């Protein structure tokens, strides 16, 4: 098993098909409104009419498939009053249903909206990196389903040394907040975090309910 598993997304290959999202929902039997993995469609730009009557455009779109970062500074674990949110020896953050109070403190704290509230059980739920699959040397459901092999996983340190990490891109939150183990490559149209250019096209699929 990996030492510190982390998700890796090659944003140049991601086509935003959301197969990873559906595979996760299917494998974990998630109810309506609970999304452990979300695909953000980030878009912007416009068309411009030049004085000579021609048009130019700087329209862009790219996709970011985001799940729990199983952070190195997991704010959900820090804020959970009952200790239901816990991080194991591999760095995987999961929620213990027997201890969860449903106070939703973790939901308020997490900038990646990883803890998701299940209205039916009235408890918090979240991505657990398909730990049951990892134990059997299989791959997480989302990784197995990705048709373009944009989404993969591996040891965090190994991935960073091979690909670097461009997680400081819009619209992702500042990685310094929680130090997530989410590695993204840079898309040709990637925008810097500080530059207010572009918008999330599908907020209903991304935001907390």
């Amino acid at each position, binding site marked *: 098993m990996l030492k510190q598993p982390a998700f890796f997304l090659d944003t140049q290959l991601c086509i935003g098909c959301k197969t990873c999202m559906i595979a996760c929902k299917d494998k974990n039997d998630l109810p309506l409104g609970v999304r452990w993995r979300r695909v953000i469609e980030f878009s912007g730009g416009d068309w411009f009419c030049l004085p000579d009557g021609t048009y130019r455009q700087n329209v862009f779109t790219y996709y970011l498939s985001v799940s729990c970062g199983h952070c190195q500074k997991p704010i959900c674990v820090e804020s959970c009053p009952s200790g239901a949110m816990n991080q194991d020896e591999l760095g995987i953050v999961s929620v213990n249903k027997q201890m969860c109070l449903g106070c939703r403190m973790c939901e308020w704290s997490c900038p990646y909206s990883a803890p998701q509230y299940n209205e039916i059980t009235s408890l918090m739920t979240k991505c657990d990196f398909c730990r049951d699959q990892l134990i059997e040397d299989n791959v997480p459901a989302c990784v197995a389903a990705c048709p373009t092999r944009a989404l993969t996983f591996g040891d965090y340190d190994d991935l960073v040394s091979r690909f670097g990490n461009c997680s400081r891109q819009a619209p992702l*939150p500042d990685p310094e907040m929680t130090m997530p183990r989410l590695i993204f490559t840079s898309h040709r149209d990637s925008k810097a975090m500080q530059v207010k250019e572009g918008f999330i096209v599908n907020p209903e699929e*991304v935001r907390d309910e």
Partner: protein
Amino acid sequence: MNNWSLIIFTLCTQCAIGLSWIGLIGRFLGLDNHILIYQWSLAVALLVIMAAILSVFGHLQNPFHAPLALKNLKTSWLSREVTMLILFTGLILILLFISWFDLGVYILAVVLEIAACFAGGLVLLTMTKIYLLKTVPAWNHLGTPLEFAGSALLLGGAFELVICAAFWEDYQEVKSSFGVGGLAFLIGTGMKLLAIRPALTIFSEIEKHTWYKIPDLRNLYSTVLIIRLAGLFLSIILFITAWNYAGKVSILLLFISLFVITTGEIIGRWYFYRSYIKIGV
């Protein structure tokens, strides 16, 4: 998210803290000349805190798991709040018991009074820290602690005035306690007014960090602010008017003032939870 249980919990807890501060500090300063004011302040504080604790079970999805909330004192502000609340409630209960049955343990009572004041302050501090989240800019500013402390003094002061008025006819010396309650009321009002500016300037911060269309809360905030300021102004008028009367008229005016203040606080706290907009994804 249904936040009514949190609205009731936070307001009732802050009211109880304010009421106990006024009762205890007033007694310390020798201003609270009548034991009945002290006892009733603590008794009402205790009743209000019980209401707060009952309401929080509406927020928890499994009330039987409530004791688990004490497990993460090391890092969780919510755990710390629950612990401080239990400590504060216990101290108020003991003080009330000592006073009501006149057990005569004066030095112990003084020590417990100091401890209760600190415990109330710690409850407010931990409650504030819960909401000072980097992910929720609408809450993460100086206005939040000012609002919470202001609510404690405003609601506590309003309750104290009603308690004083209830005994005024029979015990003229409680007029000094009336002054303590009124002072707390005015300080609470001042804190509420100071909380306006940070709350107004935060909107641009929220827009800077969100990547989708967010509801424009400026108009809603302005409406809520106007209603609350009108309520505060009316309450001050009623308070000054009540000062010049005694007996049933005074009690009635102060009850109306309390009702107006409480309604304003509920509206304000409803807006507070309504303004929950999380940055990030």
